[in-house]
């Protein structure tokens, strides 16, 4: 793989993260293209980027989630790569694939990786195969005998959409009595969100800590992992405070986490 040097990158996001990325690009002597919705005409990233293109009306669906408009903007400005930031299209495998097909680099993992890891059940399978500990749960997707499978794991129980992500298609069944309703709701939600109502089960941990490990991998097979982040200060899966190192993680646990 030949080393290259970008001269211009399009930032397909808004707000603080667009600005964050633009700042680094400037320090790297790479020209910046901001894209924006009509609502964001006077936003800081638009004012600070070298070029800025309007990609649609205020609604995200018609602007920051508008794949065609964003790729067109990259072509018009001759940007060699697109940085998606977080949220919006950042974990959308179809977007990453279309960007690549347009001859533009997507800054992030390959669309194959995004697609595999974006599906909860598949990611869990990968983790099991790699020998990474997972929460006690069903063996893959539960097709039949749902209640029996659930009882094997025990209550409270978490029902998760196989293709899920971003908290959608997830339901807790506190007790056996609540199980049928929770299962139906999860399946209905999954059907709407992912057009697929496959689910699997996991034991629900009570008041766990949310620990995450940042890693980076290059195109030559080198992977590095950083010290953990503790994101336990959250509410309804929305983080409020993150810190590192975690007060809970000992050096021995850290070794295991990173390994």
């Amino acid at each position, binding site marked *: 793989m030949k080393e290259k040097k970008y001269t211009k990158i399009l930032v397909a996001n808004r707000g603080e993260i667009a600005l964050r990325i633009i700042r680094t690009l400037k320090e790297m002597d790479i020209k910046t293209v901001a894209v924006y919705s009509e609502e964001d005409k006077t936003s800081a990233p638009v004012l600070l980027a070298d070029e800025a293109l309007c990609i649609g009306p205020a609604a995200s669906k018609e602007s920051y989630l508008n794949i065609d408009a964003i790729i067109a903007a990259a072509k018009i400005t001759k940007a060699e790569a697109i940085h998606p930031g977080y949220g919006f299209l950042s974990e959308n495998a179809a977007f990453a694939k279309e960007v690549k097909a347009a001859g533009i680099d997507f800054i992030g993992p390959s669309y194959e990786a995004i697609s595999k890891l974006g599906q909860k059940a598949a990611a869990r399978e990968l983790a099991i195969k790699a020998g990474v500990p997972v929460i006690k749960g069903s063996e893959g997707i539960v097709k039949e005998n749902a209640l029996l499978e659930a009882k094997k794991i025990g209550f409270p129980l978490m029902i998760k959409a196989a293709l899920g992500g971003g908290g959608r298609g997830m339901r807790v069944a506190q007790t056996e009595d609540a199980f049928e309703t929770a299962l139906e709701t999860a399946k209905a939600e999954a059907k709407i969100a992912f057009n697929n109502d496959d689910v699997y089960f996991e034991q629900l941990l009570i008041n766990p800590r949310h620990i995450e490990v940042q890693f*980076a991998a290059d195109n030559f097979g080198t992977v590095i992992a950083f010290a953990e982040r503790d994101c*336990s200060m959250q509410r309804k899966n929305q983080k409020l405070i993150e810190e590192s190192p975690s007060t809970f993680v000992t050096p021995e646990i850290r070794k295991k986490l990173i390994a």
Partner: protein
Amino acid sequence: MDENKNFYFMEVNTRLQVEHPVTEAVCGGIDLVKMQIEIAQNQALTLTQAEAQKITCHAMEFRINAEDYEQNFLPNSGLVAYFHTPNGLGVRVDSAVYSGYEIPSFYDSLIAKLIITAPNRNLTLKRAQRALDEFKIKGPKNTLDFHKLILQNKKFQEGQTNTALVEEILNEGKK
């Protein structure tokens, strides 16, 4: 991670995380966005595993959202008449807001990330308190005051956090 420090795989996020600045700080001021771009340019990683896992300081990120925490974190929008960010040693603010900016109602409510670094956790808490007091936002309701409330919480101060603590602090505030 459960209370016995057993940890389990949950998911992989295949993107830059909102809270990446915490890692940038703890790892001694690296730039993770730069790293992403270099990787995309087919450059090999230069940071070694030993360097990556080094803990050079303590870091905390506070998400300042345009939300009314007393109204179930209802999103707020509108004119920010005055916006003054804290600075000084160990203080980083990532924000696209400026005085006179109108926060649109169409998007997520994160308006600023306050990232505090210090040699240890206790000093980080002190510095966070100082920086939150300096932070002034005139306009939409926001979570600055809720963060100050969290800093007053004994369990948080002692590092006894888990995913139920925020709700606990909220309920205490309502009493």
